[in-house]
């Protein structure tokens, strides 16, 4: 009983393999989870539809956890790798910025997670994030620079900004001004699709 969840996770991925469908797991935060919107309307589900519509047989697993920081990255990558996915996308770090956590720690956490995933010789995709100007010019600059720095050091495919064209647009975000709404997720799915389609 104790390993119920692990077996379910493993079996669902195994079925995907059996059907010749490859698996992409997106490890992220509330932006990936689709906070406030239905699971089918969050960008991982929309991305799966787009991939399948374009003839790419990929199953996308939404492993977004609201409020999670880069500190959870290593543990979650370990968990994800147990199901032998074909690709892994890491989209964490926004909450580190919003909580003002040390950027050196952010870099360390994400690098460790990527290094672990790389050992499995699977496709790794890494997603960057920007901070709003109220966090101060210097912090915002240092924060946004951290992600390309990690991508360069770890030599992984890098998407510079998940919320490109979505951030700070009230029409594309929920009332909290932070989380994208259904329209925002459509744009995010398109951004990620354009980034992935030639790489999968």
């Amino acid at each position, binding site marked *: *009983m*104790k*390993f*119920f*969840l*692990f077996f*379910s*996770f493993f079996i*669902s991925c195994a079925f995907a393999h059996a059907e010749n469908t490859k698996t992409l*797991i997106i490890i992220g935060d509330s932006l990936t*989870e*689709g*906070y*406030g*919107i*239905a*699971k*089918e*309307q969050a960008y991982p589900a929309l991305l799966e539809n787009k991939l399948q519509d374009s003839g790419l047989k990929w199953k996308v*697993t*939404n*492993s*977004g*956890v*609201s*409020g*999670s*920081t*880069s*500190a*959870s990255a*290593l*543990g*979650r990558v370990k*968990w994800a790798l147990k199901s032998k996915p074909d690709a892994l996308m890491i989209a964490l770090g926004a909450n*580190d910025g*919003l*909580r*003002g*956590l*040390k950027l050196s*720690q952010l870099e360390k*956490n994400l690098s460790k997670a990527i290094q672990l995933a790389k050992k499995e010789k699977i496709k790794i995709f890494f997603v960057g994030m920007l901070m*709003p*100007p*109220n*966090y*101060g010019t*210097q*912090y915002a600059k240092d924060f946004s620079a951290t992600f390309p720095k990690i991508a360069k050091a770890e030599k992984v495919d890098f998407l510079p900004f998940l919320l490109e064209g979505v*951030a*700070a647009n*009230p029409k594309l975000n*929920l*009332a*909290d*001004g*932070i989380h994208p*709404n*259904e329209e925002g997720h459509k744009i995010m799915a398109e951004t990620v699709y354009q980034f992935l389609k030639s790489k999968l």
Partner: protein
Amino acid sequence: MLLRHAWKELEKKFSILFVLNLALGLSGLLAVETYRASLKSSLQENAQNILGADLAISARRPFTQNEIEIISEFQKNTLSNSEFIETYSMIQSNKESRLVLLKGIGANFPVRGFIELHKKGVIESGKASAILTDNKIWIESPLAEQLNLDIGSSLKIGDKVFIVDDFITSDPTQSFRSLTLSGRIFMSLENLYHTKLIRPESTVSFVKVYKIQNYLEAQPLADQWSQKFTDPSIRIRAASDAASDSGRMLSYLADFLGLSALVALFLSSLGAAYLFRTWLLKRTKVFAIHQVLGFSYKQAISIPIIQITLLSLLAVPLSYSLAFLEIRLINLLIQSINPMNINISIAPISILITLLISILGSTLLSVPFLFSLRTQNPKELLSNFISEPKWNIITLLLFIPALILFALLSLYEAQSYRIAGVFLASLLFSSAFFFGAGYAFLSLLKKVPTVKFAWPIRQAFLYLSRSGHRSLAAFSAIAIGVLLLNLLPQLRASLSAEIENPDQKNLPAFFLFDIQQDQIDEVIRLVKEKKSKLENISPMVRARLLSINDEEFERKKRAEGFQTREEENEARFRNRGFNLSYRNNLRSSESIHSGVEFNHSKEEIAQISLEQRFAKRLNINLGDILKFDIQGVELQGRVVNFRTVKWTSFQPNFFVLFQEGFLEDAPQIFLGSIMRSKEIEEIRFELSRLYPNISVIDLKSTIEKGLDLLSKMQWCLNLMSIIVLFTGFVVLLSIANQQSELRAWEVSLLQSLGAHKKQIFIQRSVEFSLLCFCAGLLGSGLSIFLSWIISWIFFEGTFVIAFTPLALSVALTLILGNLVLTLGSSDSWRKQPNEVLNNPS
């Protein structure tokens, strides 16, 4: 002429007793009414000061011109208003960089309560913005310490350099935000814009706050205002938010105070009605004499009405004097333990209510009684035995004006249609029940074989069963009295159980969030090394609720979008995911409301426990199957119980709890709490140094404010219950006294027939004890049932039976009844039987 005649005919001794009894009952009502109003306003002020404002309109974007125009319309209904904007920013000091919450305050800030500063002391409401000018900032003490700043230090925020003017030691305005992760810096609204941190891409909260007359009206007002805004990004919140635990308790307390006033009103009215009835019974002979002497029926009926009105009028000033004495006495008793500094004064409206009950009530209650005498032969009325009037449908219909008067008074006292309605319905049901039960009880007495009993006991049984209406009236009056008397202590016990002040030694000092799986053992060890303990460790697994009994739970946005603001809010709530936890046992702050405990059986499907209010909101029933999505894996569970969670424990709690064995392998984080200890600051420092991802939330000030309000609520509950209890006994005393007085003639008759005083005393004592015991038992029994219903309807919380007041009310009714009997009879013993027999009125 009639007036003079009525006045002359008033019998001195009985009239004095009547006036005294009526005044006693009314004085109790006045005391309750006075304390209720004073406590309510005092508690309201306390709560408002803690909450910082009554209403807030906020958005995460600037308000549009159209919205500002709508808001200006609303502002007309408020007492004062202010605004502030908040944004998070990273601040670099010479020591290190920190996340801070910048708060730019507008004119008139804060609208409620005060801000306490280290040097300047208390800054009263409305005055902060006038002091915080130029390039001054106020900074929270712990943050200043972290940034190594002193008063007079300079600090660059964005593009502007500020001077630290003072340290904030208390800020009531924080309640409009959930727990914040950082320290706060206050500056003027204008200066926050000068930092250049507020740009179109910035994440900023724009908040307008309002002060209104009555904070309890904030929620309906917020609902009303919400209708005007279609954009869900505009948030309108009442400080006394019914969804918040303290807001819910304040609203319960207001309902409780309303119920106290209703109970006092009915106790006093019951006493008054009983007095009017017995007085009128005694006047039936005079009424007959008047008719025989040639007075018209109209004139004959007018005389007792005038007399009762005159006596009631006399009782009113006496009741004020007695109430004044009672209030002085209570004030004297509570002086040293009064935490609220309440200002007591008898309100004019309370005086008016007393006047209405005594004068209008007496007249309205007399009419049906006097009407019932119309058909009776004066010869019957002239007999020395006081005869009971004959009731028919018309007579009963004549009670309707009196009922309407009491319904209106109830509505005023409760200040809620719901409470007044439920209370009146409960009382009508109870009265009918007591009459029925009383009738059955007296009929049963007739069948008791009394032949073998001693004469006084046999006589007591016979008297009770033969005196029909009179015994039934006394039985019902005592039962209703005991019911009313017990209602508040029963409700108080249930409410107290919910707001019971926790043992302060067991209160946490810090909450720890976001402890990773690979960190938990290290954190436990670190805290232990510092001679403390990480407690209430709770795993937290993030999940989406996909379906309830295979019915889709999440709400997708359709092509045409959401039709209403409410529809969108509901969808956002359903789609935002839930935090699950798992463990097999309940914590000390939890109890099972319904359903069964986890049974540890090896079922394929997990067992789930839900917090009962959460289940109610989602319309989930016991046995329902919930399907969750945990990061791509679907997991089902069956709801086996609903839990109540004692929020005053300040422990981490979860709406959804799984049994062990299903979620252990899911990606999860941990929460925990640390108790107060000497090493607490050291632990905090070490945690932030070694595990910067762990959020350490200081609960000290939140808990202290919460506890302060809790103690005041407790105090109010206790005080009101005691005052109402006192009023109730005064009323019961006056009923017993009146009953005793009414029987003087019979006592004398028995004496003249050769009965000894001892025999008569035993007979009356058995009779009265039997009546009091049975009526008291029934009244207290029904009070449990009614308080359960009222708790269920109004307080939706735990129900607790308070056994002490139940036993006490039955015992005291018995003791008081017999005491009054002894004292009341002493006068009859002193008189010669023929003296009483010759003058029965």
